[in-house]
């Protein structure tokens, strides 16, 4: 077992982004630990982010991969009017900074832009912000144990789902 390296960290982030873009949701879910945190806080009125998800609102807060599985089930069910034709999404991830790395875990911060084109409406949206990923080494594989999405533009036009953040 070795600590996560900068090239490995970048590869993991790029891989996650590409799996979402490719709508390879099963492989995407496989990148997460069972008890993973998936959290996109909301903004308070004083222009700061909410910090206590049990007392304050988040845009998305899940602890446990099962919740993400639910989201994928819904997204790909063909039964959701907004998701029947999935948007074409392109994630760009950059400014990758490996902040803490041991043999067991690592924290990686980065910036993202997710562009989406919706064939249903011919509309283009762009959401951007910062990621904080926590990784844990499980049976020799680095898995995502934590993904915190700090969304900069939080006025949501019609829809924003897990595939486009």
């Amino acid at each position, binding site marked *: 077992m070795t600590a996560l390296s900068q090239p490995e960290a970048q590869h993991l982030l790029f891989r996650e982004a590409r799996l979402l873009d490719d709508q390879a949701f099963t492989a995407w879910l496989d990148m997460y630990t069972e008890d993973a945190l998936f959290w996109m806080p909301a903004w308070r009125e004083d222009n700061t982010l909410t910090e206590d998800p049990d007392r304050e609102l988040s845009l998305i*807060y899940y602890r446990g991969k099962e919740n993400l599985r639910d989201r994928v089930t*819904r997204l790909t069910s063909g039964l*959701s009017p907004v998701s029947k034709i999935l948007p074409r999404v392109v994630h760009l991830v950059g400014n990758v900074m490996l902040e803490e790395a041991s043999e067991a875990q690592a924290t990686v911060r980065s910036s993202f832009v997710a562009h989406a084109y919706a064939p249903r409406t011919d509309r283009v949206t762009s959401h951007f912000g910062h990621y904080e990923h926590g990784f844990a080494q499980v049976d020799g594989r680095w898995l995502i144990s934590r993904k915190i999405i700090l969304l900069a533009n939080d006025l949501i036009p*019609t829809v924003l789902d897990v595939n486009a953040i």
Partner: protein
Amino acid sequence: MNDMNVAKFIDDRPDAGVFRVSRALFSDPELFALEMSHVFEGGWVFLGMSSQAENPHDFFTTTVGRVPVLVTRDKEGTLRAFVNSCPHKGARIASQPSGNAGLFVCPYHSWSFASSGECKAVKWESAGSYGAGFKQDDHNLKEIGRFGEYRGFLFGSIAADVAPLEEYLGEARHMLDLAADQSDEGLELVPGRVRFTFAANWKMQLENCSDQYHFTSTHPSLIKVLERRAREKSEAVVESSLSGADFWKGMKTDDIVAGSYSFENGHVVTWGKMEANPSLALFERRDALVEKFGPERAAWMFNMRNLTLFPNVQIAVNAATQLRVIRPLAPNLTEMETWCLVPRNESAEARRQRIRQYEDFFNPTGMAIADDNAVYEECQAGMADRQNAWLQGHARGLAATAQGGDALSQAIGMNPQRSISGTSQLADETLFQSYYREWTRRMGEVLA
């Protein structure tokens, strides 16, 4: 504007059993401009909660129609609502959603105002060589026409010539009581802003909140998830508050499980039977609520009930309690600001459960609302048709509608204008008629 006859837009003939609304009502730009001046700026609208400006010098901002509004609490504790605009050049004097300020200083030329609205200084006034006219002007912030509070809910009207707030709320106030009575300390909003837009007319949102007909059609993807969660009962997944009820499932039974009430002034509520059960955050207070208010009133507090106070606020009580404020931006664009409305001092566990249920269901980043937004947009596309202008979406339930209330409304001393109740497949649409009758009343000055 000579062709702006109300009969072109709303075909209301009760004696013939006819009520129809034209597609033009959702898409005509000229009509939209009139709605802003007469529906939104011409009568009472919801502004916010008093808890948003709790302490001396607290303030929050909002918009009424097209007009920016500032609600402040002065140092003595009095709440007022002003047009958020400097008398000098018109600049907004507060541009944040909320804050605390003993003195508001205009960003443009530094005119300053107390939290009571009083003008404290016109910069360099004595050296300004002003004429008599300026000296006679009142430089204070302008209060909007009417302002009032009912149990923590703040309302205002840009126009001053309106009925008193109590009269505007009428019997619908009982539904606000059911929310306000949940805590002796009143209500508050959970921190965290959630705003979204949809590319459709504001009245799509007005209707959908009280549309029991759409749930199984628009949200089967959510229902699929809820069914799996009910089967698997995982620790990691929060239980849906809907898991304790059947009204939304559209099963063919004879039980009376749902219905609606229409009130004066365009307010409506739909309700669905929900038993008090642990999936509801309020369940921890059930015994205390029964003791304080009696079993019938307490039972109402646990029912699903989606309330609309015409024209701009909705309180949806199903998965937690959501406060929604509707802000029309264009005939085909609407902004929603939504809040998780909670009784103060509930337990940490109840709060956590409520917030999780809320996010999953009510957020535009959750599993339901985006589908509503999408179908509004699909409707908006079809609103362009003028050859077949009359919609057929306001007719279900007409033959079952009764004048006055029923046993359930009487149980809480509430006297609606009209009521209807039935099976989960009844899915009344006649309550929407109340929206359009109030719309007609407010537009009366400009529509023949």
